[in-house]
């Protein structure tokens, strides 16, 4: 914590995923994650930071995201210093394009990314991934949402629904028969 800026800049942090994969990243990239940042600040991360809740595959993606955003932030501030507004906006667009591509993954990976971003406390990634899931849900009817999550379930449910419709239909038909029957009997009885 008292080390000079130069030392901090080149300091590497080692992260270990749940399945034993080890990643070495620059500190600037690692502290995108508030969780890791606090661990470093509290000085309990001497050698390797274990991340038992994140698999190697997901961790590599998260690191890619953080790295890209750290680079973009650095170039944006450099551009501002040089007063090159045009290039700053270009990197902005690039970043947006990167983000859009980043979340084009299968649903399981997306959920894993959300959980990882939540655990590692990376606000940008969490918002991005949650927004992606929200966009998937947006504008769908309940059946579609359900279908989105379930596939075999729906066919099972359909069969059950059909059988209950049949039972209901049967009961209502017999009910009308009763009505007619009782009307008839009462009219006969009346005479």
């Amino acid at each position, binding site marked *: 914590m008292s080390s000079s800026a130069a030392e901090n800049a080149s300091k590497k942090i080692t992260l270990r995923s749940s399945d034993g994969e080890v990643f070495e990243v620059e500190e600037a990239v690692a502290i995108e994650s508030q969780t890791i940042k606090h661990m470093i600040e509290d000085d309990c991360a001497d050698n390797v930071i274990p991340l038992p809740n994140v698999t190697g595959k997901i961790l590599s993606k998260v690191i890619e995201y953080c790295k890209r955003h750290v680079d973009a932030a650095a170039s944006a501030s450099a551009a501002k210093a040089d007063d090159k507004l045009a290039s700053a906006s270009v990197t902005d667009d690039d970043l947006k394009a990167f983000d859009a591509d980043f979340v084009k993954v299968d*649903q*399981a990976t997306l*959920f*894993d990314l*959300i*959980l990882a971003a*939540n655990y590692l406390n990376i606000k940008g990634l*969490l918002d991005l991934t*949650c*927004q992606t*899931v*929200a966009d998937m*849900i*947006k*504008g*769908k*009817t*309940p059946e579609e*949402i*359900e279908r989105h*999550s*379930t596939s075999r*379930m729906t066919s*099972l*449910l359909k069969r*059950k*629904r059909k*059988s*209950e419709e*049949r*039972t*209901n*239909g*049967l*009961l209502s*038909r*017999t*009910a009308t*028969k*009763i009505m007619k*029957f009782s009307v008839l*009997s009462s009219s006969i009885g009346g005479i």
Partner: protein
Amino acid sequence: MDTSLLLHRPAAPKPKLKRPCCSPFPDSTRNPNQNPLDALLESFLELSDSSAIALDLSFDRVLESKAYDSDKNDVIERAWRLGSALTEAAKRSARRRASMHNAVVWALPSDLTIKVFSMLDTQSVCHAAATCSFFHKCAADPLCYSNIDLTTVVPKVNNMVVSTMIQRAGKVLRSLKLGVVPCPTVASLGSSQSLVYSMRNSSDTSGFSWNDKRSRQGKESFILTRSCLAPLIADGGAPGALLRRLHLYNIERMDNTAFGAAVSACPSLLDLEIVGLHVELRQTLESVSRSCPLIERLFFESSKTGRDDSLKLPTCNDLVTNCPNLSSLALRGFKLHDVKVRVLVKGFRKLKFVDFSTSYSITGDFLRNLGGSIGGSLLEVLILRDCMHLREAQYTAKVAQGTYPCLLEYLLDMAEVSRLLSSILAGRFRNLRHLDVSNREGLASDDDWYRRCFTPSFMSLRELLEERPNLCVLADFPAEGSFVEEPMTSSDLNSDTNSPSLSSSRTSDEYVLASPSDSSYSSDQSSGNEDTPSSSYPIHEESSDEPHGYLKPQLDSSGQQLVTAVSAWGCAYSYGCTFVLPGQFLEPIIEVTTCNYG
């Protein structure tokens, strides 16, 4: 007793079934220790694949086999009860299983699910809530209802829905939009088109009857009554306390009292938009000035255009005193007088955006001498579309005299353009970036208000653009013509929509197209400047079917700089003038550059 009857049931119908009765599992493999009821139910459920008719007939036969009426009634009643119990059990199990399945597929815990739901619009939250019990639970969290948007195209929402959602939101409520908006894209663009919607005119209100007495209940029907905002006041005013934005559209039953009460419960209100409510301007403004000191944006569109003359001077003074943060003010369709308007424009120190479109009795005098240190100095946008009494000669003179260092846009009607342009040339309006001289009635000539022309001379336009390269000029005159711009075809222009797609295709800074005006006036056309050399412009020649009010481009003597001409539809030629759709000025104004054509 019931069980014994049950035990007797399958004995009779089973052999009579046509379907081959062999069950997939031979009896020997059945669990001998199985509860007899379970066994029975299982074998009954294996019948479920048989046709309903067979079951029906079988039931009839059982019924007939009973001798006495009371027995028959018993059987029927039992069938009913058992059938319902079975249905309920099946439904419950299905829901439980769906939830379990969703729990497997949907890997997020409830706090993250709530976070996802908080990014959804209100309609999607409701849909998600209907899916399974886990989502239902998550969707009941207050965070999902922070921004409630219940605007619909036709009446679909009633008080119950509003009240439920506001209660769910509790003190997390930040934004509430309610009512009937005829065309959602219109509202979102903040255009100058009127959002007032009369249900009498609508042909979409299916199943809605004015004579429906039940609608007074507000329960079964789809009407928002005057007490629809009551939940804001309820619960000690907690929901309304932190509400920032309130947009109400066309709630016909709202009245002054109810509205005033609701507003009084919202002290943190920043953005208030009211369109088509039957509330009086004066009372509304008084409520606002009493209760909402932090307000920054006020947008009122009258439901009775031009007939609300209630604004009084004390009200204006109160408003100005109590609401100093107001930066955006729009009062459309009211009868406003210059004196009062002047108080408003002068008094709000932070006022940047002013819109008095479709106002009656405004003459423009209120602009006199404003724009300097007296007031109105931060004004960026001034819209005075379709103000029928706007006096032109006086007006432009006043405007020319005034100094508006920050005036970025200037939309007006009935202006004598060249005079205005000369005043701009003279150095006024240094920050003017956008000039819109659109006029539905054509431009009034210098001396005669009634003589309209649709093609004002734009002699000074060239000079103007030379001197002020950042200027954006828009002149939108109603005419039938269409203009062909290179990548755009006339069919695009004639399309009826508000063309949000056109605006979004505005990637280059070159052009933005105005949508066709809603009314086409036949005008006496003079086809533009006769003294224009026209031969050297391909673009000019393309538009051979000249729209009325078409202004030909002018070439300066060196042949270098082309000055833009404005067609009837306000389409920009690629001379480096950008035109913004009158209603779209709220979108970022694109810088204009003059370009040189060899």
